[in-house]
């Protein structure tokens, strides 16, 4: 049953990818045995509340380091809004880490104008160092339900790559039930 469901997810994604472009869906997700625990951190959200990465254990997390001055990062934001909307109820969350030196003064207006629907925190060098330095933006980490880093994307990648990661990671539900994901609109292209 579980295998059949996972196969359904992949078939849907593969078909969506074939419909518009010759791009292949990249299998970026690491094998479970090779995944390392994601470092925990405590950062504040826009309301001043402490956000810990460990609070998300049990969920698949797309941890996105970005900044308002980063052009390629802005392409991804609407994708993440869509992922959050579509998969929130399936045990998925996007967590944005803004690396703007000006902090919320720069980030809050951007988040409001782009109707960002996922949680956002302001990052710092210490947190970036925990994740290998994060030398360039965007850099995103796909974190599995056990809090392990399953994939890393440095620079702008396609929406399809992210969708594939999410499908794979949500498919491996800890309760043994695979999720069947609806394919978001426009998933076949990089947009």
């Amino acid at each position, binding site marked *: 049953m579980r295998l059949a469901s996972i196969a359904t997810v992949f078939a849907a994604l593969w078909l969506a990818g074939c419909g518009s472009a010759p791009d292949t869906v990249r299998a970026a997700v690491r094998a479970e045995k090779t995944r390392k625990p994601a470092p925990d951190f405590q950062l504040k959200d826009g309301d001043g509340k402490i956000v810990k990465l460990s609070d998300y254990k049990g969920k698949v997390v797309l941890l996105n380091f970005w900044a308002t001055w980063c052009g390629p990062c802005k392409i991804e934001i609407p994708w993440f809004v869509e992922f959050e909307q579509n998969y929130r109820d399936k045990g998925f969350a996007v967590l944005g880490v803004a690396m703007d030196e000006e902090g919320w003064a720069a980030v809050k207006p*951007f988040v409001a104008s782009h109707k960002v629907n996922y949680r956002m925190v302001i990052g710092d060098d210490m947190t970036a160092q925990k994740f290998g330095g994060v*030398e*360039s933006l965007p850099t995103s980490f796909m974190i599995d339900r056990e809090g392990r880093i399953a994939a890393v994307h440095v620079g702008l990648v396609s929406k399809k790559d992210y969708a594939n990661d999410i499908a794979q990671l949500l498919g491996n539900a800890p309760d043994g039930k695979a999720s069947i994901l609806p394919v978001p609109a426009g998933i076949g292209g990089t947009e």
Partner: protein
Amino acid sequence: MAGQNDVLKIAPTPTLSGKRGEAVQIKTALQLQGGYHLNSNKPDDPYLIPLKLTWDAAAVETISVSFPEPKREKYAFNEKPLSVFTGDFAITSTVKPKTAGFTVLTGKLRYQACNHNACLPPKTIDVKVPADFR
């Protein structure tokens, strides 16, 4: 984001000579690594960080800082072409020394570089110019 990637180099500047209180020009030659661009001094998007050069106000009075004409280049991550600098280019500053004698003028160059799919953190580096003012 320590920003260890140094994609921008400043060419050494020969010793500047002039008189205290009289305008002198400083040419700051920059070499940007291929594949990268810097936002110009006047980027269209207010979120983008402009290229900026300032000089130590204790040592000189800055009359002007002139940038070359920026290029307008299209990148996949932006709908409209961006106002950028690429490759080798120079910034020309006109300053008036406030003191006489041998000194090293210090400027601060702030920039932010990207390539076609990623951006490096903004950086501020020192621009050092040996000078002998009479």
